[in-house]
């Protein structure tokens, strides 16, 4: 198809879509909704990743983490199988932790378990407040800073705890909670430190430390009757340059420990920032279904309108053929028209999706992100839908017998 013919088809498409504004608008609604939901979720998801990526890069580029369960390789399992803390039984064990800490270039290591139980100080903590059971190394591995007091220490009593600043305010009424006592399952914990506010509800630990209480690993295991599972192991290499070799030796060691089962995932730096929370994947799942349904319905709408349009223009097709249009010219004419429909739907959806994302982000600690991938996905989906659902009407138009078409008096 020549350049001139293309521009003529484009002009024709614009013309015919404009002449039927309300019909056009209704037709592209499905595509617009589909693309909007995808744009919203991708821009917010990526915004969240960027927040985490920023946190990780602030840590100095030498962080690796190990999570239970195999790594995700495709999007579908991504959104249907949550990872990390959601595993009923973690595949990570204390001996894994020991094996990793013995590896060269491993500077620090902190396993994290999360226990759910009621916490009471002067007041009760909200349900679902995480009890983080870990080792003293966590403070330096994650760069946690204390507002007052000190972090966990293996040389002092295990009945001690560090609280997040917000939780301190909730259960003790003050952030100056040193010496207060928290009760968990009949155990008493003396507060020896309060964390500086982090304001990082989204992070690679999936724990909001501002609203968490941190206790030692041994007492954590006691108080959960041994059911506390290691949901993540955070590791720092001795330098950023050695991180890659540390990751590969962790992979080797754990493979050996697990008899070859790849039931763990080692992530380094930017890979860590992929969102992992169950809520996020639930939202992605719902959004993807909405998007898929809207795109399909939108595609059917386009096909329907294009079939109507082909029928309406039977005589026109006859005339065009009589004055020299080839079959492929007619196919392109109608295909470009359906592409124009789906692309305007996609464009509208892209804009609306960002609008929605910004509205939602007012309730979130981060902004939706702009990147070419989201634009490419929106564009690609629109082209795909326009082509798939526009091809049949276009071919039908082109197949019309010119004689029959010319006998058709509209």
């Amino acid at each position, binding site marked *: 198809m020549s350049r*001139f013919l293309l521009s003529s088809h484009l002009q024709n498409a614009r013309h015919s879509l404009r002449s039927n504004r309300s019909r056009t608008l209704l037709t592209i609604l499905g595509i617009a909704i589909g693309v909007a939901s995808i744009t919203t979720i991708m821009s917010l998801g990526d915004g969240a990743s960027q927040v985490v990526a920023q946190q990780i890069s602030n840590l100095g580029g030498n962080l690796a983490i190990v999570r239970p369960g195999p790594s995700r390789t495709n999007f579908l399992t991504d959104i249907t199988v949550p990872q990390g803390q959601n595993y009923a039984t973690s595949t990570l064990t204390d001996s894994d932790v020991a094996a990793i800490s013995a590896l060269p270039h491993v500077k620090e290591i902190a396993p994290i378990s999360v226990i759910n139980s009621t916490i009471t100080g002067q007041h009760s903590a909200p349900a679902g407040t995480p009890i983080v059971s870990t080792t003293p190394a966590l403070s330096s591995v994650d760069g946690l800073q204390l507002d007052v007091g000190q972090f966990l220490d293996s040389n002092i009593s295990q009945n001690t705890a560090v609280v997040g600043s917000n939780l301190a305010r909730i259960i003790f009424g003050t952030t100056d909670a040193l010496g207060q006592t928290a009760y968990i399952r009949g155990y008493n914990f003396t507060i020896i430190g309060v964390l500086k506010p982090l304001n990082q509800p989204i992070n690679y630990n999936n724990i909001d430390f501002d609203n968490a209480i941190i206790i030692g690993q041994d007492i954590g295991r006691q108080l959960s009757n041994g059911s506390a599972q290691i949901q993540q192991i955070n590791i720092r290499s001795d330098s950023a340059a050695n991180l890659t070799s540390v990751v590969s030796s962790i992979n080797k060691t754990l493979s050996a420990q697990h008899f070859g089962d790849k039931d763990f995932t080692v992530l380094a730096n930017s890979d860590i920032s992929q969102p992992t929370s169950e809520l996020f994947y639930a939202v992605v799942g719902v959004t993807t279904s909405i998007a898929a349904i809207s795109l399909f319905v939108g595609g059917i709408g386009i096909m329907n309108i294009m079939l109507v349009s082909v029928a309406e223009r039977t005589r*026109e097709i006859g*005339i065009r053929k009589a*004055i020299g249009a080839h*079959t492929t010219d007619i196919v392109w004419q109608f295909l470009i028209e359906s592409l124009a429909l789906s692309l305007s739907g996609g464009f509208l959806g892209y804009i609306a999706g960002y609008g929605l994302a910004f509205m939602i982000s007012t309730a979130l600690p981060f902004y939706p992100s702009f990147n070419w991938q989201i634009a490419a996905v929106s564009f690609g989906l629109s082209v795909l839908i326009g082509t798939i659902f526009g091809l049949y009407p276009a071919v039908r138009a082109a197949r019309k017998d010119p004689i029959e078409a010319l006998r058709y008096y509209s």
Partner: protein
Amino acid sequence: MTESTNTPVIVLRGLKKHFGVGDAEQYALDGVDLTINKGEFVTIMGPSGSGKTTLLNVLGLLDTSIEGDYQLEGRAVNTLSKRQLARIRSRQIGFVFQSFNLINRLTVIENVALPLTYKGGLSHIKRLKKASEMLATFHLNEREYFLPYQLSGGQTQRVAIARALVNNPSIILADEPTGNLDSRASHIIMEELSDLHQRGNTIIMVTHNPDLTTYASRVITMLDGKIASDTDSLLGQPSVEFKRPLAMVVRPSTDNQAANSQTKPVVTTLSKVDRRKLKVAVRKRQQIAKNRAPARHAEEYHQ
């Protein structure tokens, strides 16, 4: 007037075209032998259903499922690919239909520029420029940005002729171009066509109006898918003097308003019109057309 040369542009031998299968099979064209030379102005007459439109569709390469031989400018049509056929339709053939000639959504100028689009190689601006020039020769330049529904029937057909001509085709095929027009508008269209004829185009026109055959250099009558009479076969022989009346049977046609008013078959004769007289008549009409042209168009704008 340009003489028709002896270069055949269209040669049909034993041409047949059937619709339907089995019991429903019916020959719309049933053995047509016809040679049309370059520069001829042929009118085809005949009752409704006699195969005139079918013949034009075959000649215009819209219908290629035919039996028999069709040679267009020396090339056998059945050897051409679909793309080649489309190319020939685009460059060598101009179509004018009875009605609904124009694409309603497009302006007059876009309609005229359309064949240039399919021919390729010209930018949009250049296409419009060429279309505009073409419209100017039909005194329609003030109607360029009108939509088809804003035109009178006569104007619509002149736009259709402008469109048929924009690619400089050598053959114009017109299927009852005046079928929906009153006699005055019909004559305007006929004058345009005979103008084209003068400039050397080959014109093949179907009509129900016997008056219009005087514009033509040759009149063919069809009946039941066959050629019933052809002035050329008689006029072609120089020794034959036209003393005998050449009868042309024109049955009342269902798709022609003018003919509908008549209930009985009409017999028109070309009796006293011999070849020379026919030529003189045509020339006279052309002279009249030329003299009348500016006034005619001025009149039309006020319609």
